[in-house]
């Protein structure tokens, strides 16, 4: 494939943006159907309680109320919320769409009120009387693992959902022969993904046809269709899931929640469209959270800095239930514990525990930010212990460019990489040597300045089906219409990533057509062939690869017809800039002319199928492994602990870039979220399981004025895994940034004897560390 063509490799502005910026796109809540009823869900205010009784009589008699449903009404009628994560011995507590006699987290759905408008529904929900009998609350992951802890799901006898081990190599020998062992306890705080558009569902049942339409703000329309059909016991092809505009997901919409099946069922009961739009408070309480691991990492190292082994014992606080991928997330951490380094022996022991909180699941990076943070943090600790420069330590242990494909002790095979290349660029941009001199000078006059580096590699382009819970391939259909317009049906479900643009760029170049003639359709299960969806930075690496293969098939088919029409054989033709050339007498046919001929079919070869379209299902042979270096420079206010980011340099290597403008946008947003994790973002529950950060007035999502100027550059190491050579960049910024900022702050505090501070690095913590 050639790059830097007319569209590919160019900074093409996103064609999605005009409608989104003008506010004229359509999200679920913008879709209005006549006679729609509105659902409000009554949720538990207790983190752990037995439900003795629910009195809905007043609510049922309130004005405008059509129906009120509780757990008893749906028992046996709606299947449980699915968990696709599979681990040996995994305990999966049944999660009904409405609580069955017991609530186990604040926000647990208890009843659904259906009314003619949402105000009446909410008024009536306030009239429902639930007699709760509070139980002991387990809000701390480590406490939940203790033998004497109260148990959340009594049927299991304890709160341990799974014990998972990963890694290979002789770890004990590595530690026995090490010159030094460096140990650090680390907390990865809980975060909330916070999409600007919260979740929402509109369900419409057509009784005569037996057809259920669901509009849902999701990243996985097809997987949702399958799951909801199973939950409701109706044929999968009688369920149509449509995702209109989706205002962000970050992993939180890679899920099937209570509301999809519940609303579908309610619509079937009442034979009317029903709508539920999540409020922000609900969003913080009952949309999945991310991260939430607390553990100890130990590294065995020689005095010259050679890494010998790594051990990570961790408790993953899963929350009260498994959502779709809850138990899978910490296993992703276990795949990436080698980082960019040759570590011969690695072991992770992970205990997943239930607590009285919302479930954790995939949040941008999903398991890999945890791995990168702990590896990059311990690298700095090792450098500190050995008195080595943190970059020199990294370079000493880097997997070298000529060693790929490289299989790590975690059992995964990195596709390609050149870690030195990105590091060298980043060091050059900041002038690393001079920067350290500046730091020495600043320290000499009492200023608190720090430099933090993170050299990361992550696993994405998910992924080979054998390693995925529900298939890792992706699909594309390319159709050249009679007028020469091109329709693409992609199985991915973009929700902000810009594939309507980048896919049009690809097809525009491959077919030699104007990219504005290419329409990319996604997110409607009745229009688009089955697909897996958008998550794990797979849209381009897998979905784009399927698109390339389908487009190649279209070209091949068109060539057959062109040869027929031009009176020559296909091998003598070549396809250049949308034209078939090389025929006798310099006769030429454009792809548009061929498309028309394929549809009129007046003159076609004998075994030629009319029409001009092709489909491809692409199965990736491996994951992709983007990498890069982030360097952060901070200065800390000695009197207050306030952190000022002076410089932020990111050199990312996501392989070939189809649209560098979109790549930069992804990196910008990714760094913002990684920075927020480093500095201020945190879901806080108190010891009663009450959510303290229940609103955006307390839950700190990053805002534009809180992020520094980014100095971006890139390295390019194409992946051999797909025909685009593209690795994916949706999560890299989030994964690479957090440790560079943490390392910078802790580096700044070295003169105070500080070795580590847990995230988020709120000014108060930093100030206390300086004054300890």
């Amino acid at each position: 494939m050639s790059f830097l063509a007319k569209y590919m490799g160019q900074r093409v502005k996103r064609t999605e943006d005009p409608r989104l910026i003008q506010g004229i796109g359509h999200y679920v809540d913008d879709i209005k159907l006549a006679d729609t009823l509105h659902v409000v869900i009554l949720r538990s205010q207790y983190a752990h309680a037995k439900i003795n009784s629910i009195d809905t009589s007043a609510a049922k008699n309130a004005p405008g109320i059509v129906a009120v449903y509780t757990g008893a009404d749906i028992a046996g009628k709606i299947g449980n919320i699915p968990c696709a994560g599979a681990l040996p011995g995994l305990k999966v507590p049944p999660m009904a769409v409405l609580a069955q006699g017991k609530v186990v987290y604040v926000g647990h759905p208890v009843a659904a009120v259906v009314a003619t408008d949402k105000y009446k529904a909410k008024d009536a929900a306030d009239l429902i009387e639930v007699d709760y009998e509070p139980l002991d609350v387990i809000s701390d992951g480590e406490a939940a693992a203790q033998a004497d802890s109260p148990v959340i799901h009594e049927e299991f006898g304890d709160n341990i959902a799974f014990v998972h081990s990963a890694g290979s190599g002789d770890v004990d020998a590595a530690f026995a022969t090490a010159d030094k062992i460096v140990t650090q306890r680390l907390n990865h705080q809980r975060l909330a993904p916070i999409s600007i558009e919260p979740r929402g569902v509109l369900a419409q049942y057509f009784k005569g046809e037996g057809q259920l339409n669901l509009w849902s703000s999701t990243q996985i329309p097809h997987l949702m269709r399958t799951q909801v059909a199973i939950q409701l016991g109706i044929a999968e092809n009688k369920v149509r899931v449509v995702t209109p505009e989706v205002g962000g997901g970050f992993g939180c919409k890679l899920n099937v929640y209570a509301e999809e099946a519940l609303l579908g069922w309610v619509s079937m009961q009442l034979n009317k469209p029903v709508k539920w739009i999540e409020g922000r408070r609900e969003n913080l309480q009952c949309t999945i959270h991310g991260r939430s691991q607390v553990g100890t990492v130990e590294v065995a190292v020689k005095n010259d800095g050679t890494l010998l082994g790594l051990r990570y014992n961790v408790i993953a606080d899963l929350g009260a239930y498994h959502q779709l991928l809850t138990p899978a997330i910490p296993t992703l951490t276990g795949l990436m514990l080698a980082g960019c380094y040759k570590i011969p022996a690695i072991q992770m022991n992970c205990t997943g525990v239930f607590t009285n909180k919302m479930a954790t699941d995939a949040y941008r990076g999903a398991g890999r930010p945890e791995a990168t943070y702990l590896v990059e943090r311990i690298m700095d600790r090792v450098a500190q212990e050995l008195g080595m420069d943190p970059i020199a330590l990294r370079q000493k242990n880097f997997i070298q460019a000529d060693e790929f494909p490289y299989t790590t002790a975690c059992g995964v095979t990195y596709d390609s990489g050149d870690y030195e290349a990105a590091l060298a660029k980043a060091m050059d941009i900041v002038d690393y040597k001079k920067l350290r001199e500046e730091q020495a000078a600043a320290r000499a006059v009492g200023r608190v300045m720090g430099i933090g580096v993170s050299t990361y590699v992550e696993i994405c382009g998910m992924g080979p089906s054998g390693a995925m819970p529900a298939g890792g391939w992706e699909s594309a259909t390319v159709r050249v219409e009679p007028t020469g317009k091109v329709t693409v049906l992609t199985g991915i479900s973009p929700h902000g990533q810009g594939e309507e643009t980048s896919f049009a760029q690809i097809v525009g170049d491959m077919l030699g057509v104007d990219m504005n003639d290419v329409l990319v359709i996604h997110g409607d299960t009745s229009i688009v062939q089955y697909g897996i969806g958008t998550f794990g930075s797979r849209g381009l690496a897998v979905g784009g690869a399927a698109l390339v293969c389908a487009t190649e098939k279209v070209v091949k088919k068109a060539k057959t017809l062109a040869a027929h029409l031009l009176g020559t054989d296909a091998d003598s033709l070549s396809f250049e800039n949308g034209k078939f050339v090389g025929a006798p007498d310099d006769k030429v046919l454009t792809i548009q002319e061929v498309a028309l001929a394929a549809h009129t079919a007046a003159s076609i070869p004998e075994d030629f199928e009319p029409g001009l379209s092709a489909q491809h299902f692409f199965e990736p042979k491996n994951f992709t492994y983007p990498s890069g270096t982030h360097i952060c420079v901070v200065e800390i206010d000695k009197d207050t602990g306030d952190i000022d980011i002076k410089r932020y340099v990111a050199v990312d290597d996501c392989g070939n870039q189809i649209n560098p403008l979109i790549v930069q946008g992804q990196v910008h947003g990714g760094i913002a979220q990684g920075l927020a994790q480093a500095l201020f973002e945190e879901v806080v529950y108190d010891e009663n399981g009450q959510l303290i950060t229940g609103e955006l007035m307390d839950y700190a999502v990053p805002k534009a004025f809180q992020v520094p100027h980014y100095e971006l550059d890139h390295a390019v190491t194409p992946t051999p895994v797909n025909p685009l050579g593209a690795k994916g960049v949706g999560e890299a910024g989030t994964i690479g940034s957090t440790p560079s900022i943490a390392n910078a702050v802790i580096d700044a505090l070295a003169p105070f004897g500080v070795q580590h501070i847990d995230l988020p690095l709120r000014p108060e913590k930093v100030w206390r560390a300086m004054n300890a």
Partner: protein
Amino acid sequence: MIPANFEYHAPTTVDEAIGLLAQHGEDCKVLAGGHSLIPAMKLRLTQIPVLVDIGKIGDLSYIKVDGGTISIGAMTTHGAIASSDEVKQHCPLLAECGGQVGDQQVRNRGTLGGSLVHADPAADWPAAILALNAEVVLKSANGERVVKASDFFVDMLTTDVQPGELLTEIRVSVPAQPKASAYLKVAQAASGFAVVGIAAQLEMDGDTCKSISIGVTGLAPKAYRASSVEAALAGATLDDASVSAAAAKADADASDAMGDIHASEDYRRHLARVYAKRAVQAAAAKA
């Protein structure tokens, strides 16, 4: 995030508004920019049967300078105050404070009057209003009264405004030559509200501080004047040592200290001291 039912009125004159307030008494609340009231209603933290929206009253949004007094209509937005040339010229402290309230969207909707009546303990304006010895004009069916800033803030979320009263205007007397001033705050990472905010205004005579007033917000359940700091500095020579020693009393006049996940009580007290010093020095540097 769905409010309870309420009755909605949108009067176009002050008299009409006052009439509605008198008619509905305790059942009724004024709606200004809605940036505090509407979130509270949506969360059903408060249920208000009758809302009187004063946004349609044209003559509540103004900035006038006349005879040594700057008068600002209650509906004037934070943003309008921050960007007003007249305010910058005659009372720069108000412009500096207004420019630090929330973010641009909040500044474009939220009003000075609304912020003062709401009396959030972490709001920015109270610090400046106290430091400036401002006056607040309240109108009701019974007439008009003028309340001093020092009497206006009663407790957390509580002011001297009585049911039936509409805050119409904020007045600050401004000398021909404006006094040197500064407003410095530590913004809470999520909301932007003040973890601590210090407004300082002073007059210098060479190195000597002739007069000084300091308002503190964020630390205590209600904003207060840092009288101990003022007493230590009025008439004193301002240098690093004297300002540090005085600023160490910045929390002395706080009725209590608030603590939450963003900043503990101790840390807030500490920030008040650090920022009192910085605000005084920043103001002095402009004198």
